[in-house]
């Protein structure tokens, strides 16, 4: 039994390192995209459209992963696409986290009418189909990076608020919080000093998971063709194009899809791995 647990922890550790490693790799590639990419991601060449990847017959070896229908280099577009994906993940994830966690903390700790209002809002938000809601918001806000980020924040704050509200409620009922109050700490002070540190691990885990979700939402919106102008290389946009030509040029779909898949998987596994790390029962 003891052996089994050690094994579980070891494989959990491997999972943590693998996902962190992949994300670091993607980050570096994104930062150094102009140097990492072999071609200009926007350069079209209609004479070299839909060239297959290098190992397939008829390939042009300088287009390592082939070209799309407009002759743009798939690899370079994936590399530049990482910039947009990670920017969205980082900014949207952090903003969503800040707003959602704050509202959750307020609702869970202050209770009363604040809680009633926030809980009701969460209920209403839960009754929206999220994809449709985000498509709708993009239609309202117009395409662009800023709109995507705003849409993610507006839709996903409930993920944080729901969980953090419940946790803050649980913590608020503990004796040490009452003790702090008796000792004369203000309500806001108690919330920040006593409650926040205890829900911080949960916030970190949710933030990691949210970044993965943000990457997906960006891809979905690009796929529906409502996010960033189609010229800009986005993974979702590439997938959308690949989907239409999947029978003629599979590589246009496969490579961005694999990249997106691994990145989403990595964020999610990182979050789950952190959750296990933080969970005192497993530790």
């Amino acid at each position, binding site marked *: 039994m003891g052996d089994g647990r050690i094994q579980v922890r070891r494989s959990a550790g491997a999972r943590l390192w693998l996902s962190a490693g992949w994300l670091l790799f993607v980050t570096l590639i994104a930062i150094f995209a102009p140097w990492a990419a072999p071609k200009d991601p926007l350069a079209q060449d209609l004479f070299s459209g839909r060239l297959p990847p290098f190992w397939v017959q008829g390939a042009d070896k300088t287009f390592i992963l082939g070209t799309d229908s407009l002759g743009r280099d798939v690899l370079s577009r994936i590399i530049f696409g990482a910039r947009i994906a990670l920017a969205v993940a980082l900014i949207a994830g952090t903003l969503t986290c800040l707003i959602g966690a704050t509202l959750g903390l307020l609702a869970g700790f202050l209770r009363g009418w604040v809680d009633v209002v926030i809980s*009701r*809002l969460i*209920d*209403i938000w*839960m*009754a*929206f*189909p*999220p*994809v*449709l*809601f985000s*498509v*709708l*918001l993009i*239609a*309202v806000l*117009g395409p662009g990076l800023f709109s995507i980020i705003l849409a993610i924040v507006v839709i996903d704050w409930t993920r944080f608020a729901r969980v953090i509200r419940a946790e803050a409620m649980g913590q608020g009922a503990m004796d040490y919080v009452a003790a702090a109050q008796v000792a004369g700490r203000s309500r806001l002070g108690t919330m920040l000093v006593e409650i926040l540190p205890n829900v911080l691990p949960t916030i970190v885990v949710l933030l990691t998971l949210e970044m*993965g*979700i943000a990457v*997906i939402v960006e*891809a*979905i919106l690009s*796929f*529906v063709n*409502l996010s960033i102008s189609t010229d800009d290389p986005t993974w979702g946009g590439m*997938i959308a194009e690949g*989907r239409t030509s*999947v*029978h003629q040029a*599979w590589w246009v*779909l*496969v490579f961005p*899809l694999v990249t*997106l*898949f691994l990145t*989403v*998987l990595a964020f*999610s*596994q990182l979050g*789950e791995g952190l959750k296990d790390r933080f969970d005192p029962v497993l530790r």
Partner: protein
Amino acid sequence: MRLIKAILLRLVTTAVTLFGVALIVFFVIRVVPGNPIAMMLPPGATDADVARLTALYGLDKSIPTQFLIWSTGVLRGDFGVSITNRQPVLALVLDHLPATLELSALALFIAVFLGGTAALIGTRLRGTRVEAAIDVGNGMALSVPDFLWGLVLILLFGVLMPLFQISGRITPSLTLPFSTNFYLVESVVRLRFDLTRDLLSHMIMPAMGLAIPLAAIISQLLKQSLKEVMHLDYVALARTKGYGETHVILREALPNAVLPTLTLVGVQFTFLIGGTVIIERLFSFEGLGNMAIDAVINRDLPLIQGIVILFAVIFTAVNLLVDLCYAAFNPRLRHG
């Protein structure tokens, strides 16, 4: 008395939620830039034409007035007229709803079947490599959302091994004898199994894409729940009576493990229905979600409103249904 109070409270909160949804979507879409009327008219239309049509759709009035007109209409069952199709929104929505319902139901069925089987096998073979493999599979399936599973399925079974159809609901060249839009149900009722086959061949991939994450959740929850139940005394007692392990799991443990799983699965099922929007788009499946995205792209305000409200109604209805199921399955509530 307490029951009546609980039901009343439930109805009130549901009404507030639906009203909130209506209010938000109504105001959000009025801020949409671009005049939908101008978009639907041919290029040669004059400003006077636009103004006339704008007035016809009531879009010249103030937003609160529009909301008042619209919501009194809704209470009478009138959701307005679609700007692009010029058909009543209600009729359009009800036309497309069956496709989405059939898809969701099939996905739910697949998810329960796959997830339940995995949980039972994992419990029966606990401590073995099979259980470890099931755990890893669950983790993977949960980490990646339906949209990506749909794409992976398109690649695997639409392109690499073209076993199934990956776009549309039915082969367009077929003549359909149907009188409702519940094609799948009707094809079975009419014993037209050739059509059932064709429909399933189109539905199985999008349904699988929707089902994979839910199957993983079901498998994980049910397995955890079974694990807890398998430690209880009545399970041990059943073993001493001479029953085999499979019988013990199915007859003694499963009925008691299902209940805690049920409520959580209910919430997750609403997520699945929400997922039909993008999955239908991905597979060009002519349902509500696909129509919704078209409506957004075309700025068809009345249609968008109608669809969002319908989704909200479906979500709350599912939640209500789950609570009823919970009461029905729980002997303590049934007789208490």
